[in-house]
């Protein structure tokens, strides 16, 4: 088992020091401990983090901006045995994809979501993202972003996620462990991966994070929803990292009778025109 099995020949082109490199490393570390490439599908959208999919040797569908989660839902319905990893940035998941984020979590879709959260738009050169702070200034935000930031960890909790974690891209050991735990979780696992944007975010720098990051206390009870929400919404003087919440609930596929048994994709023998015969009886 080693990271090379998931190493594609596609070289990423992020700025030196970008948190996406750490995230990619951790994905490549975590996957081979649990899976072989053919078992895994990466569903991605648009943005710098979404491009990570090209550098992982596995199945890949790079879709459109914000829509990786519905794409993943279709994959999961067609093949509930597929191991699906959704990777996107804060614009992808919380701006264009905000609606889908809430509804995928409500459904407890059996996917692992890696949210690359650097609070800024890189590809379009430095606008504040939905997770950007209220007073983040940029050429188009003369008055600051002037909106309260989306809190991905809290949003995941209240949307019904059954596995919610947060960490920093530089905490590579913790991040790799969380990705593994997320992949092993049945249901939606949401991991908010905070990281710096060395080019456009002068506020939330590595030093800024280092001052605030603190692992969740060992005695934190991951089945305690209220405690998880309190810790997630306790301000940014201290930013706790680790697994906030985990609970077992039926997955989306578990809840649909049509998807019981063999994955749909393996039921090709049933796909014959004669299948409609019984339904026609109701129209006589």
């Amino acid at each position, binding site marked *: 088992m080693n990271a090379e099995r998931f190493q594609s020949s*596609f070289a990423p082109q992020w700025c030196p020091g970008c948190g996406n490199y750490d995230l990619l490393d951790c994905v490549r570390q975590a996957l081979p401990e649990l899976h*072989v*490439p*053919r*078992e*895994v*599908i990466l*569903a991605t959208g*648009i943005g710098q983090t979404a*491009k990570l999919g*090209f550098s992982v*040797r*596995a*199945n*890949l*569908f*790079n*879709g*459109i901006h914000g*829509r990786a*989660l*519905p*794409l*993943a*839902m*279709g*994959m*999961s*319905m*067609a*093949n509930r*045995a*597929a191991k699906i990893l959704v990777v996107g940035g804060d614009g992808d998941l919380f701006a264009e994809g905000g*609606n*889908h984020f*809430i*509804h995928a979590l409500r459904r407890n879709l059996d996917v692992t979501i890696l949210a690359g959260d650097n609070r800024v738009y890189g590809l379009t050169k430095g606008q504040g993202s939905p997770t950007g702070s209220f007073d983040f200034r940029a050429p188009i935000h003369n008055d600051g972003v002037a909106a309260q930031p989306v809190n991905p960890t809290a949003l995941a909790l209240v949307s019904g996620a059954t596995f919610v974690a947060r960490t920093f891209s530089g905490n590579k050991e913790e991040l790799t462990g969380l990705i593994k735990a997320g992949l092993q979780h049945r249901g939606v696992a949401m991991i908010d991966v905070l990281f710096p944007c060395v080019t456009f975010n002068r506020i939330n720098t590595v030093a800024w994070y280092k001052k605030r990051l603190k692992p969740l206390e060992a005695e934190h009870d991951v089945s305690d929803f209220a405690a998880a929400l309190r810790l997630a919404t306790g301000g940014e003087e201290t930013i706790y990292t680790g697994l906030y919440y985990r609970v077992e609930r039926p997955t989306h596929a578990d809840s*649909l*009778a*049509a*998807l019981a048994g063999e*994955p*749909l*994709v*393996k*039921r*090709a023998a*049933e*796909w*014959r*025109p*004669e*299948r*409609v*015969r019984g*339904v*026609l009886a109701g*129209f*006589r």
Partner: protein
Amino acid sequence: MQDINIVIAGAAGQGVQGAATILGKVLLRSGFHLFANHDAQSRIRGGHNFSSLRFADQPLAAGVKRIDYLLALNQESLSRHLNDLTPAGLAFCVDGLGGDITDGRLRVLPAEVGPEGARRPQYQGVKLLARLAGRLGLAPAILAQVVSERFAEKGEAIVAMNLQAIEAVLAHSRQEESAPLAPPAQPLGPRLLVSGHEAVALGMIAAGIGVYAAYPIGPATEIMNLLAEHGPDLGIGVEMVEDEIAAANLAIGASYAGVRAAVGTSGAGISLMCEAIGLAGISETPLVIVDGQRSGPSTGMATRTEQSDLLFVVHASHGEFPRAVLAPTGPEDAFSLTFAAFNLAERWQLPVFILTDHSLADAQASVAEYDLGRLTIDRGVMAPEPGETTELPRYQLTENGVSPRAYPVVSNWLVAQDSHEHNEYGLVTDNPENREAQMAKRMRKLAGLAATMPAPEVQHPEAATLLLCWGSTVGPVVEAVENLREQGQNLGVAIFRQLFPMNKEAVRAALAGAKRLVSVEANSTGQLGKLLLLETGLASGGHIGKTDGRSFTVEELVVRIGKYLEEPA
């Protein structure tokens, strides 16, 4: 042809639809050909709704305006529809609704007919049906059977009450003369009474659909309802998602993962799906999209019909990519074209639109039971399975532009698909030579597909004037043309079921005999005429349009086509 047109009218919630369903089955099982359409307002209670059921000894594909029998569930129905009742026609209502109407054609059913318990309003539909059955000489046993099936879920007591009411009304009706219509002498064999969108859903089931996604919207919700009802038994995952954007992306994900997938909506939903349609185009993912057109733009008239999305779906989404657009004309070809749409989508790896409209979606017609033996599922070219895990050249350059597919996870191929321009392995690149090669590959599919498209069906190809039509407009145009030909007009009809891409040579040859082409469509601008010019260079000489949201009737078209021939607009 001998035909009778019955209108059942009342407020929403009064049971117009239930009565129409019962009467439809009774007429079907009595051996008649049948066409039924439904007119509803966008509300849950109140308003004015009516269903027209036309039956005959010959096949029917259109509604008429004239009414032979009116079953009125409220007083407003009488005041609205008596004008269209023929001089020999009759209107039926229960005691108390006639008011001060003195029309000699009105027959009021006395309140005391039938059991005491059946005097509540929910029984008036069944009583009026029994009254009509008596008049038309329909077999009481068939009516009793259909009513028993309909109310079986409500328990034996309700069924018994309905049957007693029917018996009493039939006994009462025997005082009057009956005026039966004989069904066709030759029995018609096994038949179904199916609406356009039920036929679409049935076609999807026959085609082996695995996943269907939608957001509720009329008139497409009927497809979702039927698939959801049978999904658990048949292994069809049906998901009502948060919006149409999610629906289209979900279906693309399911198709990529190896099952046949479709979405259904109306034009407003297509507007939201546009970006995903382009994704299916560039990622070469098979996708079937039903557009049940309704009156637009924007919310328009939400329960009313129109044929105004043709040029929209031909061009929907930015950039250029191949697609196909099919347009059924009724429940018979709605089944076969839906089945064919999935084969086309997978053979050519592209989005295929099934363009229906509100009128077609709701209208029911009797059809011969679908011949399943003639259908073959074709999932297109698949890559031979490799011995070990290997990257699939998913976008391999080929002569006809179609690259072999594989399904991820269940094969040893690693499958990469991409919304960006990509190389043969599905990896993003903006290399100019690669772009030209991949673009040309995709567009070769459009040319190849066009060459397989059949010519329009032309009736009376020698006629000087050919009327161009598609969708729900075809039925009434064909019947109006037969009427006008009997009056000596030199007219024919060209019926387009494969709207895009057009097979240029085949279409030109099919229309070559005509001196003049005139489009008849439920839109303002004559979109089929414009598309024909774009695709083949043939110019339509004029357009007979309609945007009032109601289906064309035969009488209306006889007048409008006749007038057009006198003075072309």
